[in-house]
């Protein structure tokens, strides 16, 4: 049966306007638009979208409720499986997960599942805070290390199951990468993130900021002295990678982490905050993932003419399609099949240019992607004031180093089984701390699986 209604487009801020502000790009659906879009769902008998969702949100069920206008019901349905719907609706790579599996996508456009999830979450916020009944606590104490997506998902499930849950966060604000990494224009902090965190707190979860596990207090001390019977490590992948090319320590070369943390966590873009940030008039961002897009679009908004340099082609860009599309609309220049070989400085030690080579695609590598090969003699310079390295991140070794019995892989991730159990009894882990840099939703999925494993472990104990 053909589906005659086309995918309902979502309203967005004009690219020319938004290139100069940090307000959210996408306005989201209103109720009418959402109900119309929801009516496109075919309600497959074996919904592939659910299987493709790392936390298993019951997508056709919530969409059916939206189509019927029962938004509160839809919110309750999503809440059964996801603790951060307003975040996921905004930052998940839907095109490779739920929407990528939608049957409608075979011949036309898939149901706009992400935008529907976001609408349901935003609608719920708009109803104001309703008294949530915190589950009966008083259960065993569980410590969660890191307040990013993995930790929040794990904490929510455990609190719902009646455990006494405390999250320890190293930075001064909770949220992990949602706070320091993803910019305001993609994930508003006050309007969205704070409310999601409030919802987690309303479940009875305590969040202690400014506590660096491994330094302020160790896992051993949490378990031996503070009575925590299980620990979940969701410390993410926070260490920035650099290329190892000459000139990386010149003034004006930053990791995307530094650039984004200054802007997002430390609010350098706001006049009323004291944190300085340096973009200048021309910025080159090296990399092709979501972080590269975020850094480039931030630099653009700070007034810089911005170029993204990536060694493969646009097809291989690991960023969400929507982010690439938005970046282009906003006027960011994409130099594909281009790889930096050196950063050139002036006599004062500041960046003056990025020296690059052109690449062509060769044979597929172990990841199945065609690996880029240098075209001989293709060296050229891009004059620039600032270079931002967005090459990925690796897990922070602090916890592993300070916790006896906790093993890591060659790449620095914690060794953990499918359920999150590490090599140390009572200590579980999940998300980027185990896998290396991945996505918000995969981290949430790992957090949920670990919560189930912790529950099973503590019941047996």
């Amino acid at each position, binding site marked *: 049966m053909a589906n005659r209604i086309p995918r309902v487009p979502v309203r967005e801020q004009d690219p020319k306007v938004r290139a100069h502000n940090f307000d959210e790009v996408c306005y989201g659906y209103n109720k009418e638009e959402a109900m119309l879009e929801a009516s496109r769902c075919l309600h497959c008998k074996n919904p592939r979208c659910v299987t493709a969702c790392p936390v298993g949100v019951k997508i056709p069920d919530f969409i059916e409720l939206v189509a019927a206008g029962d938004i509160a019901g839809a919110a309750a349905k999503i809440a059964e499986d996801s603790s951060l719907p307003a975040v996921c609706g905004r930052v998940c790579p839907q095109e490779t997960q739920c929407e990528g599996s939608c049957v409608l996508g075979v011949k036309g456009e898939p149901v706009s599942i992400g935008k529907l999830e976001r609408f349901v979450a935003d609608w719920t916020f708009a109803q104001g805070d309703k008294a949530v009944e915190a589950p009966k606590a008083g259960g065993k104490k569980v410590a969660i290390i890191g307040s990013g997506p993995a930790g929040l998902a794990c904490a929510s499930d455990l609190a719902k199951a009646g455990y006494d849950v405390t999250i320890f966060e*190293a*930075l*001064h604000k909770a949220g992990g990468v949602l706070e*320091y990494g993803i910019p305001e224009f993609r994930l508003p902090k006050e309007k969205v993130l704070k409310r999601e965190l409030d919802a987690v707190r309303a479940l009875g979860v305590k969040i202690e*900021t*400014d*506590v*660096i596990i491994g*330094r*302020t*207090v160790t896992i051993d001390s949490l378990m031996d002295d503070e009575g925590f019977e299980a620990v979940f490590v969701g410390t993410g992948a*926070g*260490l*920035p990678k*650099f290329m190892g090319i000459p000139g*990386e*320590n010149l*003034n*004006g070369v*930053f*990791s995307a*982490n*530094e650039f984004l*943390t*200054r802007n997002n966590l*430390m*609010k350098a873009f706001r*006049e*009323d*905050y*004291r*944190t*300085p*940030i*340096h973009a200048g008039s021309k910025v080159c961002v090296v990399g092709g993932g979501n972080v590269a897009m975020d850094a480039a679009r931030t630099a653009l908004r700070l007034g810089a003419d911005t170029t993204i340099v990536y060694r493969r082609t646009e097809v291989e860009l690991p960023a969400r399609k929507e982010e690439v599309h938005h970046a282009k609309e906003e006027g960011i220049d994409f130099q594909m099949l281009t790889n930096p070989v050196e950063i050139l400085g002036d006599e*004062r*030690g500041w960046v003056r240019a990025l020296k690059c080579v052109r690449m062509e695609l060769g044979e597929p590598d172990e990841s199945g992607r065609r690996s880029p090969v240098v075209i001989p003699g293709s060296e050229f310079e891009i004059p620039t004031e600032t270079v931002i390295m967005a090459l990925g991140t690796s897990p*922070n070794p*602090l916890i592993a180093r300070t916790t006896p019995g906790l093993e890591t892989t060659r790449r620095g991730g914690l060794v953990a089984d499918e359920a999150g159990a590490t090599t140390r009894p009572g200590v579980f882990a999940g998300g980027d701390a185990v896998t290396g840099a991945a996505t918000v939703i995969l981290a949430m999925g790992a957090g949920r699986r670990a919560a189930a494993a912790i529950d099973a472990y503590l019941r047996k104990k």
Partner: protein
Amino acid sequence: MFKILEKKMLNPTICKMVVEAPRIAKAALPGQFLIVRADEPGERIPLTISDYDREAGTVTIVIQPIGASTRAMVENFEAGDSFADVAGPLGNPSEFVRMPVEELKAQRVVFIAGGLGTAPVYPQAKWLHEHGVSVDVIIGARTKDLLIYEEEFKSVTDGLYMCTDDGSYGFKGVGTARLEALVAEGKKYTQCVAIGPMIMMKFSALTCMKLGIPIWVSMNTLMVDGTGMCGACRLSVGGVTKFACVDGPEFDGYLVDFDEAMRRSAQYKAEEGLANGK
């Protein structure tokens, strides 16, 4: 929130504060640092720990107003007020703390302290003194009024040598000249530790190299998070890039590229000028 229990101006610009932070006081060791964010619009400022009291649950910091955030810390906060955030202890403790006892007992240590760096020398000297290690401390400043911590050091050092550039107090000249004089007088040292402005640490390293004394320096670089996330603190040590926050803050002074480190420290000067108006 972290309550300020005591505030005292040590000289016209350097301010000492004792802050309530029980978890940090319990874990702190000599050589480590804290990140302090005074209030919501403030930056995260790395400050070396100047003392800690495990029983009282307090840590001591000294602050010199340089940028907008440090100025706000000193000007807007009094005893009884609270800082929004104090996180730590960060970085690795001093090498001495990790040394086998036998090796430690054999040490004859000289510290060169300059300016704000004088304060963080104190917990190290105290710790060594308590462990029966011979400690000399050289404190340098431009002029007499700027010297700090003299009284505190008296009880934890074997030799305390004050120096001023203008000769208004103690030895006339810089700390490195005092060290050379002490060695010429026959003093023998197995290890030097320099904490102070980078330019002072650079010349301390050069002097120690000349005298054949190993030296550690405590690198007070720019930082944002202090936990290894941002890389703002990166510096070259023996040609290899290190992060001061997680690999340091103390490094072999022979190997540090001080010129690069000083250049990198000035990276936000233009923007800071603007922030001072914020």
